[in-house]
């Protein structure tokens, strides 16, 4: 593949991003959802292979496959039948595992409204020059995605989260890929600029799984992700493949469902967007042509701002906690309960109407 160095330089400066992030979410748990974990881990492997480091990947998995008692090959998660490729490997770094994969944590990661005690690896520290890849897989429906069988995230909430990210300029461009049933419904409501979305199936269609492995006993991958991964296997960090090729992956003959995509919010032409803009991490570099001339005979340095040696006693335990913050907090209202008076009033109304209608003589039968 020969291309002029000039062209390369031009390509570099077209996208305008300086770093890449990836948020990979698997929203299911339990053994029979093996394929969703394998999907996410395969995308994780590809993204790492193409250059995004673990510090820039937020991986959310239920992580109950590798050590599941029903796994005939413990500590492995396979993505191809005949156990060809172990995507779990030795160096997988799961940031949110098991019960930490909740809608709340996912939205906190996206919007950045994270409690201050969260470590760096669990945060999305993107800035206005970051390209972010968001991959979600699991069970979904028309307008929602199920999280761990207990809660859902709606497409409205997701669109609002992206808008919050845009307001704070937490991304330069965003690629959203979803592999669930009726996945196209999840990107219908997006309204922030610079988002491109791909889904494995349209509203009303189901995404199907690919191949079961008789040794493990479950389906290993979903069709759409399987073919996307075959496509990504041919991408290497210097390749020039663009997004239009990704849109063609998995036609209806192979996937049974119709994959969809949405590019109207995206500023650039998808033809000009490289796959490695989102899946890889290709940095812009500049040659350093200037040097500073330093005087080598410099003795020790005395700072202009000497650090003041304050005689501080070690803080007492109570002073180290953010007490002021805690006591000024209004109680967090987790669930909205109607006020008790309402229920009582309603029942009083029901009883009153009942006895007014049918006569007070029925009272003695009740009590």
């Amino acid at each position, binding site marked *: 593949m020969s291309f002029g*160095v*000039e062209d*390369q*330089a031009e390509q570099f*400066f*077209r*996208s*305008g991003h*300086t770093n890449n992030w990836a948020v990979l979410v698997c929203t299911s748990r339990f053994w029979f959802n093996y394929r969703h974990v394998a999907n996410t881990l395969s995308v994780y492997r590809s993204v790492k292979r193409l*250059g995004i*480091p673990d*510090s820039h990947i937020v991986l959310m998995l239920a992580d109950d496959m590798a050590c599941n008692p029903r796994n005939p090959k413990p500590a492995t998660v396979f993505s191809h039948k005949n156990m060809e490729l172990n995507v779990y490997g030795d160096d997988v770094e799961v940031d949110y595992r098991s019960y930490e994969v909740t*809608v*709340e944590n996912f*939205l*906190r990661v996206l919007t*950045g*409204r994270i409690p201050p005690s969260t*470590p*760096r*690896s669990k945060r999305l520290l993107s800035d*206005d*020059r970051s390209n972010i890849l968001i991959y979600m897989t699991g069970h979904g429906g028309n307008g929602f995605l199920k999280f761990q069988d207990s809660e859902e995230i709606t497409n409205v*909430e997701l669109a609002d989260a992206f808008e919050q990210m845009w*307001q*704070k*300029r937490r991304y330069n461009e965003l690629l959203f890929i979803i592999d669930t049933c009726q996945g196209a419904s999840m990107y219908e409501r997006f309204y922030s*600029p*610079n988002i491109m979305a791909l889904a494995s199936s349209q509203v009303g269609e189901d995404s199907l799984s690919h191949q079961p492995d008789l040794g493990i006993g479950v389906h290993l991958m979903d069709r759409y992700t399987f073919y996307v991964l075959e496509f990504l296997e041919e991408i290497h*960090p210097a390749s020039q493949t663009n997004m239009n090729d990704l849109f063609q992956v998995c036609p209806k003959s192979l996937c049974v469902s119709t994959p969809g995509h949405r590019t109207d919010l995206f500023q650039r032409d998808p033809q000009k967007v490289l796959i490695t803009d989102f899946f890889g*991490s*290709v*940095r*812009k*570099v*500049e*040659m*350093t*042509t*200037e040097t*500073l*001339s*330093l005087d080598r005979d*410099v003795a*020790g*340095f005395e*700072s202009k*701002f000497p650090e003041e040696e304050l005689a501080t006693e070690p803080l007492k335990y109570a002073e180290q906690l953010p007490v002021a913050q805690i006591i*000024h*907090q*209004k109680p*967090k*209202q987790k669930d*909205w309960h109607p006020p008790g008076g309402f229920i009582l009033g*309603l029942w009083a*109304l*029901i009883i009153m*109407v009942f006895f*007014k*209608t049918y006569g007070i003589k029925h009272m003695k039968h009740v009590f």
Partner: protein
Amino acid sequence: QVQLVVPMAVVFGPGSVPGDLPRPLPFRDVQEMEISVNCERPPCLSLPRPLLMGGLADAALHPLQDTTLGSLTVYVVPETSSLLPQGINVYVGKHRSALVRAVGSLAALQARLREVTQVMSFTAASIAAALSDRVPDGRLSPDARRDLKSSLGYEITFSLLNPDPKSHTVDWDIEGAVNRYVKPVLDKLSLVANFSVDSQILYYAVLGVTPRYDKESSSFLLSAHSLPHVINPVEARLGSSAASLYPVLNFLLYVPERSHSPLYIQDKDGAPVSTNAFHSPRWGGIMVYNVEAPASPQASFPLHVDVDMARVMEVFLAQLRLLFGLSREEVPPEFLLEGPGNEGLADWELDHLLWAHTVENIATVSTTLTSLAQLLDKIGNIVIKDDVASEVYRAVASVQSAVTKLSLGHLHAAFQASKEAVTSSERAFFDPSLLHLLYFPDDQKFAIYIPLFLPMAVPILLSLAKIVRETRMRKKEPTKMD
């Protein structure tokens, strides 16, 4: 509307006063240049820049004085003076003063002074670049803003990469180098942000690219288009402090393997780069340090290598300057700039940074508070905690004070106020309690309670209807009764 003021004092040497200067001296002249950076939604910034000129007809040149942040002193020397070398019309010192060769008319002098301000303080382009993420897309090229974003602190990490410990035992006196060369620069920059420095040595860390062997120079070459792929495999091993959230600047010193020595970096045209180093915007820089081949073939491996820290630090500190956007390349040719020496940057370059960061901070605060207000409008029943409210008030007060101080020309105070404003507004915006998930939209409440209450309500409504009918019939009856 934000006004940026550069207070500038002009001192005329003897014989350098332009002929058409209005009498009597001293006088003050205010020059305004209005630059509007068009943007879609408020706040739009237009930047008038008044230049104050106080003329002095005294003979003696005053010694260079340390002036306050943001202000400039310009000394005008006669046209034929030999203080300035031939062909050079402006000499910019490393503090906040400049020597300007006189010109005939006041208008030409003003034009020259305007040029001086552009070099020493800010240009419309630099302010627009600071605001680049607020300007609607399409107006600026994608790589308009490659300098580091304004932040409260930065972490600097120096890493020594030794891929071949069997051949080289590399010793670098990083602590001494940091104390001697890096601390002065960081001290000067301490006004801008807090810096923390750490260092590490990584063994068996290879670059991701295999260099090409070049027979002519009998050396190995890394071409320009393979450089972007060098950083990624290394980055996975670099690590960063778990506790701090500040952006990290990585400076890597790579000692190539024996089998790949000497290693040179080629730029786009194929010429070797003199510093043998390259940098990536908002990330850091890499320098390749070649070790000479041992004189005798029987030299025992591993070779002991003592790194020349001064040479390395010259490159790293130059890269640090470039990462911050302090480049001296766009200066007009008739300007001569004094080198900054061990301090790393001149006072007026510090001012440059402060102007850009102050404007960026003010823009960030205003968009943050606006979007916070929009969020609260959209979700009506969000609960605002007391401390979030107080942070918002503090942010608004600080940003207003920053804008006033900018219009008075007090750069230091304006910058401190803008820093406080950014801290408060970020704390308010990113408060964990503002997650809109916790507040149910009305249609969800509807959807939950209707299936519960509707079946229950059916007999009630029927009974109510029955009551109403009975009452109406009873009202009609008395007319029938006798």
